[in-house]
């Protein structure tokens, strides 16, 4: 199977962002606002799952949109979906940050939870479970993490996710299967550790 790249013709449904991008290229602020409300949370979530850091995730989202503002006038409709391109920019920004990152171990200080809030215990348990999942994901190789984030957390189609990662669908499926196996292994190891304490 051939590799999907940005040069591929997108033969799916019409790209819903094309008109917005053209308006953005003409300096239309309402269009920029619409694009932000459509895609900002997706970019932040993807970066968060890839980097495991809320602040860096926001920085990546800002980088992505800055690139959008600078490149909107060069966008050629009919190639890959604009959203797919945005995901690719976000993934590359995450790769750059992961390359630069030095491991810094700090004590994890959980957010304060109001003791009087109804269901506070449940919130704490949910937060701890979420943290365990995030820790397990962060132990996966970055490409497996990206694939899981796009397909399972962002619910992107396999073809769009493959385009965003610039790989074939088969390669994407391999990353997904290995990612799921790795996640199960890390979560099981974590559960064993917790039981042994």
């Amino acid at each position, binding site marked *: 199977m051939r590799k999907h790249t940005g040069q591929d013709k997108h033969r799916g449904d019409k790209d819903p962002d094309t008109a917005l991008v053209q308006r953005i290229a003409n*300096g239309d602020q309402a269009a920029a606002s619409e694009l*932000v409300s459509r895609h*900002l949370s997706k970019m932040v979530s993807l970066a968060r799952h890839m980097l495991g850091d809320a602040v860096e995730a*926001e920085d990546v989202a*800002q980088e992505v949109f800055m690139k959008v503002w600078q490149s909107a006038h060069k966008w050629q409709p009919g190639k890959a979906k604009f959203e797919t391109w945005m995901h690719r920019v976000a993934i590359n920004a995450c790769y750059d940050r992961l390359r630069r990152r030095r491991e810094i171990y700090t004590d994890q200080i959980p957010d304060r939870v109001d003791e009087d809030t109804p269901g506070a215990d449940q919130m704490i348990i949910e937060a701890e479970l979420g943290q365990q*999942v*995030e820790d*397990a994901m962060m132990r996966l190789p970055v490409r497996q993490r990206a694939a*899981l984030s796009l397909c399972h957390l962002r619910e992107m189609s396999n073809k769009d996710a493959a385009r965003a990662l610039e790989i074939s669908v088969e390669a994407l499926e391999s990353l997904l299967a290995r990612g799921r196996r790795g*996640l199960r292994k890390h979560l099981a190891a974590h559960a064993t550790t917790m039981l042994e304490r």
Partner: protein
Amino acid sequence: MPLTMTKKQFLHFCQTYGSALQRWPEDVRASAHEFMQTHPDLARPMLEAEKDVDSALAKAPRQEVRPALSAQILQSFRAETQSQTVNTAPPRHGSLFNLLWPQNHGLPAWGMALALILVFGFVGGYTGYAYTLNRTSATDVLSTAFGNDGDSLFGEENTT
């Protein structure tokens, strides 16, 4: 994909996309449904085995977007648009006059013209006055003009 999915294929999609069929590729869902109906005893355990990972992924933290972040990003759009406008705007006037006296900096063009007339008039008038004096050397004239009457600006030339 043909409507006859094998056990091996079903397992592959289970282990790749998880237990929720809506996440499977659209073009295999019909055959997957058919496999589940014809082989429920095979399909059910395979789907059940993937539910732990699906459940874990559903608990992955979702990050809320701060309104301030949206505002910052839109601010960056305004800044970028303005900078592109400035960079692509044609130069208003390419003349030496505009280089010396850019517009929109406080004084109108007629003010500039009046100031230039005054300056050149003063310099020309004073120079003419200086040449009418009984001087033998241009150096003396210049020395006087610069307020150094009797002192040398150019070394030995003035001492002769």
